[in-house]
């Protein structure tokens, strides 16, 4: 009895609080534009979600300090999915139904982004994804957009460079994680279009400590270059093992290793390795006249001043998504979902960290292959190949 009474009392107290708070919330809602976000801030994909959330928080704060958007303050509502697709769907439902957000930016991984698409389409709310897979925007879905480069663009950039060097037969070696698998599929699909034959197709486990078995098979093949799709320790081990076996074929890596860590881990073995990467990585090496340089240097200095840690391209994606959304709201003059959607689709010549965005009704990403710079590692540093 006693316990039941206490529970009843607690419930009464709680609900009276909720009642007093409700009108305040409603008041706030009128004066602010709500940006909903679901990111993998913890868990295996936290290297994506962590800088993305930090970037969103940083710029929402900045925009508010400068007077907000259309005279209204931005309010960021965020949930951590830990990379779990089921959680992502629940959080997106909560963002739409309970938090009543005006737009959703998020989905650090392709898995979480794909999972929420049916909900977003049904509820008719603009969604800008921060994940890589082409399938997010192909086929085009009215309410879904994305800002990061795709694996396909990376593969295309690599094959274009191989064509220039006259390479026509390659060995493919990829990690068995989602990134490696998707990169492998895109490479196998695109290679014939560039007149390139994949003569040998190998894989390795994400945590494997040695890949010399696969590489000695490659050594015995007719391949003229090696292409490695993967991230984490895998590519560094591949790079070192290639040199250990004395294989002197050109080695290509994907944008998955586009960080200083890869050079540190591979050491001298990384010399001469080529890879496609976002301009953010080489912002200081860009030509001063390059309009992208301004955007990049500004983002890098703001982020690094605030958080004291180095920027990554992933945080850059969050910047691009937020700025595209804000610009669309300004053009629409309101946060009306349908109007904002139309305006996002009309994004033209927006200079983001990933490159110039030109969206159309048939292209909900708007980047071209040029957004990737082809880099070569020289003297332990990146250098841009023209």
């Amino acid at each position, binding site marked *: 009895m006693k316990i039941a009474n206490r529970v009843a009392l607690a419930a009464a107290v709680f609900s009276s609080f909720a009642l007093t708070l409700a009108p305040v919330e409603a008041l706030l809602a009128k004066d602010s534009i709500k940006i909903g976000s679901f990111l993998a801030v913890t868990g295996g994909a936290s290297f994506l979600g962590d800088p993305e959330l930090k970037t969103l928080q940083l710029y929402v704060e900045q925009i508010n300090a400068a007077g907000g958007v259309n005279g209204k303050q931005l309010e960021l509502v965020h949930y951590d999915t830990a990379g779990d697709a089921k959680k992502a769907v629940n959080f997106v439902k909560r963002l739409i139904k309970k938090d009543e957000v005006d737009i959703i930016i998020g989905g650090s991984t392709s898995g979480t982004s794909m999972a929420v698409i049916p909900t977003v389409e049904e509820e008719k709310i603009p969604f800008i994804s921060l994940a890589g897979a082409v399938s997010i925007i192909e086929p085009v879905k009215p309410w879904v957009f994305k800002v990061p480069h795709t694996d396909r663009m990376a593969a295309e950039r690599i094959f274009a460079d191989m064509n220039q060097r006259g390479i026509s037969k390659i060995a493919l070696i990829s990690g068995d994680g989602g990134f490696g698998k998707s990169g492998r599929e895109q490479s196998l699909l695109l290679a014939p279009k560039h007149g390139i034959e994949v003569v040998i197709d*190998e*894989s390795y486990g994400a945590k494997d400590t*040695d890949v*010399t*078995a696969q590489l*000695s098979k490659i050594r015995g093949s007719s391949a003229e270059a090696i292409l490695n799709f993967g991230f984490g*320790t895998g590519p560094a081990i591949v790079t070192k093992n290639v040199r250990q*076996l004395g294989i002197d074929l050109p080695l290509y890596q994907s944008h998955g290793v586009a960080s200083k860590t890869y050079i540190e*881990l591979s050491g001298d073995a990384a010399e001469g390795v080529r890879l496609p990467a976002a301009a953010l990585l080489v912002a200081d090496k860009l030509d001063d006249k390059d309009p992208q340089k301004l955007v990049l240097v500004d983002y890098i200095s703001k982020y690094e001043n605030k958080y004291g840690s180095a920027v990554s391209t992933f945080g850059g994606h969050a910047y691009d998504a937020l700025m595209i959304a804000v610009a669309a709201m300004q053009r629409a003059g309101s946060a009306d979902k349908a109007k904002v959607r139309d305006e996002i689709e009309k994004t033209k010549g927006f200079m983001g960290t990933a490159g110039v965005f030109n969206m159309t009704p048939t292209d909900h990403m708007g980047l071209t292959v040029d957004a990737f710079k082809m880099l070569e590692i020289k003297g332990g540093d990146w250098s841009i190949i023209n």
Partner: protein
Amino acid sequence: MWDQLPQLLITGVTIGATYALVALGFAIIYNASDVVNFAQGEFVMIGAMSTVFLSGNSGLPLPLAVLLAVGLTILVGMALQRFAIARSRGATVVAMIIITIGASIFLRGVALVVWGKEIKQLPHFFSESPIVLGSATLLPQNLVVMIGALLLVLAVHYFFQHTRSGKAVLACSYNRTAAALMGINVGMMMLIAYALSAFLGAVAGILIAPIAYTSYDAGVMLGLKGFSAAILGGMGSPMGAVAGGVLLGLIESLSAGYISSGYKDAIGFLILLLVLFFRPGGIFGKTSAERV
């Protein structure tokens, strides 16, 4: 086709030596307490990660950093025994195994918070230029791992067969009550077993780190492979652990080379299942009748 064979064999033995080192630690705790310690992989990770941070961030000379890191890992192993395993005395072996799984998740979490999620590496002990053997190559560090594994297994063998403490640890595993009645301090022996196993884990981690890198979650896969190797060779037999490790390494490398690299892990586990089907005690395992 056959010209790849020397390289595949050498690769197999190098990977196998890595697995063998991890498997040794599993064997020792199992020998002493019948518990499969799933935090063994975390000992490997702590050994490597603390060496990286002591030598890199604190600027200590490498040998001193190695000593301190090994000491730290031993302390962690002893703490695990004292504060988690010993306190659940009377719990079933399965419950203890679950405790070790919990401990492994906890240790990984602490490592993530303390050391962050970046991938780290240690410098190679000797030169990085490969040694060429005919059509095959290996790194001096590969030799260090192999010789390290060999020395450690001999030391462990000596400890169990020829020292009083080693025999006492074994006695506890055969019959805890009888061992206690004979005046053996069972608690102390368990502590020794965990310390020894943590020591082996730390050394394994430090020897492997220059080749395979390390990160807060590096213990997961190494732990799993080491456990498979220990089972394959016969749980509780130090010699079996090494044989199992090398065998598993060879299976993986040969299947990657001749069948398919995508299926190499599957083939490894398939052979493990087959071995367990025909010899449930593992290749070098004692029959269960002997254990009772």
